[in-house]
């Protein structure tokens, strides 16, 4: 079993126009910047992207949006210090937005990976975001029914990866990555280091390889935050 690939371009080669793509990360932490840039180079458009945010500056997800590749964004928080790229397109009506409460977003993705087509949550009950969704009462409290969320692809960022696709993460860069790995038809992971099978302690595997289709090494991954402080622009 060898899920490792030699290059980022090969890793994203299968992603076509109109694909839905989950992209890991919370802000810049855990965002697979290099995979996103390879996706920009590869050229697919009309994408639906699922991410907690809408990118920052002119790198990573913001750059993908800036290149006009994203038709729809599903996220919880498209506001931040510098989400100008998204904001401009959104206010011009050029990108569709589905706002999902953050915990519901995480749970919908987890449900997609776990084969749970729908679940009930107290979050958003009685608010505008629950409009049109079924409501049910359990034990005297109201809950909103939410559907699973799946995608054609997931682009995620890990710390260690092995040929079986087992992954670890680095600190709070874990965030949505393990969930998205479960919920996509094809999960593509960039990792700081590929290690031989068996080198990740089975007790410390966070994402078991069954959820991962390909692993590519990016030895010195860039942080979105750092890039933006440097004023980086991609491409």
């Amino acid at each position: 079993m060898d899920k490792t690939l030699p290059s980022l371009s090969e890793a994203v080669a299968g992603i076509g126009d109109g694909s839905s793509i989950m992209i890991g990360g919370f802000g810049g932490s855990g965002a697979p910047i290099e995979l996103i840039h390879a996706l920009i180079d590869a050229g697919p458009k009309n994408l639906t992207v699922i991410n907690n945010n809408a990118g920052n500056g002119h790198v990573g997800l913001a750059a993908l949006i800036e290149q006009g590749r994203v038709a729809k964004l599903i996220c919880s928080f498209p506001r931040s210090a510098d989400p100008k790229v998204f904001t401009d397109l959104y206010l011009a009506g050029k990108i569709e937005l589905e706002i999902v409460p953050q915990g519901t977003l995480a749970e919908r993705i987890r449900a997609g990976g776990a084969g749970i087509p729908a679940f009930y949550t107290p979050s958003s009950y009685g608010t505008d975001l629950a409009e049109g969704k079924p409501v049910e009462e359990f034990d005297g409290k109201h809950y909103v029914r939410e559907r699973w969320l799946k995608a054609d692809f997931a682009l995620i960022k890990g710390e260690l990866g092995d040929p079986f696709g087992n992954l670890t993460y680095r600190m709070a860069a874990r965030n949505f990555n393990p969930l998205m790995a479960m919920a996509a038809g094809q999960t593509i992971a960039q990792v700081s280091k590929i290690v031989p099978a068996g080198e990740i302690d089975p007790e410390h595997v966070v994402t078991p390889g069954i959820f991962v289709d390909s692993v590519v090494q990016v030895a010195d991954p860039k942080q979105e935050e750092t890039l933006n402080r440097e004023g980086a622009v991609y491409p």
Partner: protein
Amino acid sequence: MSDALDTIKLSNAQIAWRAAQDIEDGAYVNLGIGFPEMIATFQPEGREVIYHTENGVLGFGKAPAKGEEDWDLINAGKKAITLNPGAAFFHHADSFSMVRGGHLDLAVLGAYQVAENGDLANWSTGKGGVPAVGGAMDLVHGAKRVAVITDHVTKKGDPKLVERCTMPLTGVGCVTRVYTSLAVVDIVDGHYVLLEKLPQISFDDLQAVTGAVLKTGETIADLVVPEV
């Protein structure tokens, strides 16, 4: 009236200080992005509080020194943090299991409006722009207590404590206590109950800048906060 209030009202730091005094030793707490984050600064000595952040960290500590930031170690406000001994990392679904599953003792959030029935509006002014909700709609459900810290009135002088919210709701009947720049108010059975007020303001003047009836218990304590 509004001008007079400006001279006596608590600063944001003082509101945060007051809220910090009520967090018991050993509590698991989530502080909303921005203003509520300030509460951690005023944690009373001798109390150990475990802070949770939605993006998958339990037991984080102070901000690192400038230049020492690791951008993989941030809080929900995307600010760099450090870890205390006994910290743990976990993914977003586990993180919101802690929130939604009733495992947090307290969540403290900001507010545009709070209603006497406990409704909270804090995510959207309803005036267009880019909507963004983050974890607010999750945090208002599940935590054993949901408190709000806020100025007592808007910049224009309108009440933020109201009978019914006119702005888009974040959650229904979720808030149990409000710390304002003038008072500390509980929400009990669909009514405001005044616990503390600044000694410099009369009950009637406070009621006048509050958008719903302030009930009172046996006593109203003085809201006394040091310069911070």
